[in-house]
């Protein structure tokens, strides 16, 4: 088990290395000179002098060749230093630290909304296959899937904040501020999980061991929520793990809609400002989140499905 985790961490580091090389080279191949863009912004739109540009480049190490810049950056990262923002001279780690929690909070709340809605809906839908409850939930799932979440966000804001006035339209801080963004973010994922769980439940309900469970005299509730659900959740866990990464992406848009602070708004601003240290730091952090959730999913598997042995067969 520990051997497996260590091996996965090593391969995860390789992934992070690849991601960093790619983003690093991409930022330097995209048009737009960071020195010029940032100085122009600092000077309120006027073109900076050539001397100022040179000074900026020298100060930020932009005159070195790209491989040298990369090695310098990686060396710093190893020491826990992601560099400083070109714009405000604040350390990137500080910027991320300030903005990480709101995004994680939103993603976790979105995931919670999705699971709380999707698990009962998927189960009920499968148990009442072909019935009214099933059709109802199928229609809702389709709606949830097809609605773009920024639009759903504005819709919810219109109804609950503007018309009914029960929740704040935007901002950050209280539980009330979290409700609408979390529901917006969770809806799409809830729809995906509902459909997946429904088909997975239907498949498991056809298994012989479900007949065995019934033949013991177990109540249908136990047959469904113990024997069926436990097996049906196995494919769902994969999707939830993968989707958690995408929740961070979804959070980018929702943070804009609800004007929440977070990694999303930080990233967008940094990209437009050619603030490369911030962009690279953020991409690295998101990659770390992906690698870690994937590892967690694989470890969770082991607990849900005893047939899976970690470490590729031979333990």
């Amino acid at each position, binding site marked *: 088990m520990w051997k497996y985790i260590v091996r996965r961490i090593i391969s995860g580091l390789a992934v992070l290395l690849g991601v960093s090389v790619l983003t690093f080279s991409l930022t330097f191949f995209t048009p737009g000179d960071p020195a010029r863009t940032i100085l122009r912004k600092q000077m309120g739109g006027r073109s900076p002098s050539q001397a100022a540009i040179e000074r900026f480049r020298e100060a930020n190490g932009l005159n070195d060749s790209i491989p040298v810049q990369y090695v310098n950056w990686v060396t710093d990262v190893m020491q826990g230093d992601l560099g400083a923002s070109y714009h405000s001279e604040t350390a990137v780690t500080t910027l991320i630290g300030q903005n990480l929690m709101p995004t994680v909070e939103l993603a976790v709340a979105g995931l919670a909304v999705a699971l709380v809605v999707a698990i009962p809906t998927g189960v009920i839908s499968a148990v009442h296959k072909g019935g009214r409850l099933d059709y109802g939930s199928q229609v809702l799932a389709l709606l949830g899937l097809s609605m773009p979440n920024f639009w759903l966000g504005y819709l919810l804001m219109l109804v609950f904040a503007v018309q009914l006035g029960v929740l704040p339209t935007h901002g950050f801080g209280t539980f009330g501020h979290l409700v609408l963004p979390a529901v917006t973010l969770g809806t799409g994922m809830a729809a995906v999980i509902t459909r997946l769980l429904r088909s997975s439940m239907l498949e498991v309900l056809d298994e012989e*061991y479900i007949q065995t469970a*019934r*033949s013991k005299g177990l109540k249908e509730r136990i047959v469904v929520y113990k024997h069926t659900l436990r097996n049906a959740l196995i494919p769902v866990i994969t999707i939830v793990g993968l989707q958690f990464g995408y929740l961070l992406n979804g959070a980018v848009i929702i943070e804009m809609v609800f004007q929440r602070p977070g990694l999303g708004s930080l990233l967008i601003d940094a990209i437009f400002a050619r603030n490369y240290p911030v962009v690279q730091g953020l991409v690295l952090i998101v990659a770390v989140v992906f690698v870690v959730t994937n590892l967690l999913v694989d470890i969770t598997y082991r607990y849900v499905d005893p047939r899976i042995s970690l470490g590729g067969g031979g333990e």
Partner: protein
Amino acid sequence: MTEPLLSVENLHTHFETHDRTVHAVNGVSFDIEPGEVVGIVGESGSGKSVTARSIMRLEEPGKIVDGSIRYRGEALTEATDETIRRLRGQDMSMVFQDPMTTLNPVFTVSEQIVESLKVHDNPDHQPLREYLRIPFLHDRTDWAEKRDRVVELMSEVGIPNPEERLDAYPHEFSGGMRQRAMLAIALASEPDLLIADEPTTALDVTIQAQILQILSDLRASRDMSVMLITHDIGVVSEVCDRVIVMYGGQVMETGTTEQILTQPRHPYTQALLDCMPQQTERKEQLATIEGQVPNQLGDIEGCPFASRCAYADAACTSASMPVCDCGDGQEAACCALDRVPDPTREAVGVEGSR
């Protein structure tokens, strides 16, 4: 005569397909007495398994449309869900054909046996938190106590070193071991009737013999009735007291094992016995029954075997078959018994009795 343990009368179980109805079980009647081992034989598709599932009320997606099933006089066709659950938990158990698919892969074997014990203790009270074993909310001592009983059951069905296998999952068991585990699950509810649906078909021959041995030992030690479904005449001759031959969802012939094996009266039973490899000389082609099992779509007129029967005439396809008494409790559903050779008479005349 005392009341039979199980009495099936004129049972009809149908399956609705999108355009037609499959008459899987089409008027089956038989009794099972306490302590008796009854074999049900027939080709695939003859309605054996559906009959068994109907008795356990696991016939879905099929429907019992007519007839009655009585267990100790209680009508199962009209019973409430609670009654059915109580019967499954305390009176009737079922062992299925393929042990590779009948155990839940994500729970330990012992947990699956314990569940059965818990249902047996109290079939009417099954709180979800108790069965899900939610930490802090379930009764740990109860599960711990039941482990001793699990060890007993596992050794009773011949699982070696049961203490070491308490935490084993089904995938860590071989096919034969899994079928033993299934038997332990079935026995945990102390059944008076054990329905075994081809319990040895998916196993290799040596394991088959062991499982059959365990079945007959258990039947003797627990004094329970066994309804053994099989298509293997060899299995029947080893363990059964009485045999029911089914074809096309109907009972063709019933009698003691001795009667059916040595003096079959129904043409189908005779044809079935002729197909046994032992009946054929070495290097000769094995005997077969020409034709195929009817698909049982829609209503069937007359005898379902008529199209494959060597003795059939017009009368066989027009009316339903009379059940003829062939003496000593042997019965055959055939209208042409006067044309069909009678092995009892032949045996005396030609080569002496077996």
